[in-house]
């Protein structure tokens, strides 16, 4: 059984695309296909008209940086984690550059010396985003970046991502259930169910709301209930 079928879409440079849909609908698989952590059995992914299979996978992954759902921090300090970059990438790992990467994700440069294990979930996630940013990617692929976080931390990560899109001119593809993140990012929304595209809708400007009934109903269902 294929996970995805007949999925076709485009993302313009400097815009964002949000993948929504119930779990098991193939959102993460689709995201992983975009930087070739996963290999589609059929079809192709193109970047600037070139099939990504023709690109060096390691370079592709630095151009389209993927941030996983569960933040992975390696043993050591935040600085050690930010410096975990392939030698071949020749990433600038000077202190000012690391500090700037932290500021970009809304963390204080003092964090550089903190032990990775002492951070909160939201801080960890922002460090992994900063680590991805150090490679100067053109696109950021985010797999449910707020799923493992409590609402205040999730809100901070939403702020970070929305700010980055503006400041870094990034192309962002994100899997999320957060209506707030979708609203803040704008751009297009791809609604997947069972590996198929059910709706593909774009918002022009922040004020514009999504109109597709199914997408709205799905996102409404994701809002936290007031009474628990």
């Amino acid at each position: 059984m294929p996970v995805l079928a007949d999925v076709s879409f485009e993302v313009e440079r400097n815009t964002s695309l949000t993948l929504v849909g119930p779990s098991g609908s193939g959102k993460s698989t689709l995201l992983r296909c975009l930087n070739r952590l996963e290999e589609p059995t059929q079809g192709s992914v193109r970047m600037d008209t070139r099939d990504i299979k023709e690109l060096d996978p390691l370079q592709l992954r630095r151009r389209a940086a993927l941030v996983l759902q569960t933040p992975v921090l390696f043993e050591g300090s935040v600085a050690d984690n930010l410096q975990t970059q392939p030698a071949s990438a020749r990433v600038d790992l000077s202190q000012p550059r690391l500090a700037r990467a932290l500021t970009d994700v809304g963390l204080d440069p003092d964090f550089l010396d903190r032990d990775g294990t002492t951070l909160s979930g939201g801080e960890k996630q922002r460090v992994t985003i900063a680590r991805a940013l150090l490679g100067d990617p053109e696109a950021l692929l985010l797999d449910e970046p707020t799923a493992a976080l409590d609402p205040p931390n999730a809100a901070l990560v939403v702020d970070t991502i929305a700010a980055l899109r503006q400041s870094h001119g990034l192309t962002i593809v994100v899997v999320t259930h957060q209506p707030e993140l979708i609203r803040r990012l704008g751009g297009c929304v791809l609604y997947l169910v069972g590996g198929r595209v059910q709706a593909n809708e774009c918002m022009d400007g922040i004020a514009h709301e999504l109109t597709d009934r199914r997408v709205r109903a799905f996102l409404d269902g994701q809002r936290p209930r007031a009474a628990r």
Partner: protein
Amino acid sequence: MMASAGVIDLSLWQLGLAVLLVGVVIVISAREALGLERDLVVGAVRTIVQLYLVGFILASVFAAGRWYWVVLLLIAMTLVATQAAVARLKKPIPGGYEIAATAITVSTAITLAWVIGVVVRVRPWYEPQYAIPIAGMILGNAMTSAALAGDRLQSDLRARTDEVEALLALGFSGRDAVQPMVRSAVRAAMIPTVSGMMTVGLVQLPGMMTGQILAGASPLLAIEYQIVVVFMLAVATSLASLLFVRLAVGRYLTPAHQLRRYLL
């Protein structure tokens, strides 16, 4: 039967008295409801049959004194060791049999050649009295360490999939991304050997040394051989585990630096 120098010969009825010891174990198992009686009987019978079989084969190979019989026996032992190492893996690795065979054969061949040809200087090299027991010790340890390393590699890759994929996503090569798991698997396989070196002779006398002393060798000669054996097993286990892990880890990666998660 003739007794060889300094060794008390065992008659069949003396062996029978040893079987009584298993009887004690069976009684314990029955009284404590351990449920091991059947396995104990099967195990005891297998011990007797398998060892007699090996004894007859060894006796005829020793008597023949031909290099090709020795080589044939070594090949058979290697096949059994390979099979056993593969069987110990919790999940099959594609091409696991070839990987285990390569790791065990190469590590054993190198170690055996050095010990027999350079250290002990057995002449002729295929003298079965030396070649077979030494090869047997090397094979047994190479097998165990290869299986241990393979098992650890699998469980580490499974438990640390996110870590591997985080590194891949940053643009690390597949080899670099799995390097921490390779290291910990080889370490895990070598630790028993290294910690064994710390206490060797203090807690219990190694089996081979015990055998030599029982066979009438002087304790000093026995420890000299044991020293050779300890170092020989250290190199055999490290080579076997390193080779196995290096070859096996490649099966979990694609040429496009992807982790084959379905194999874990």
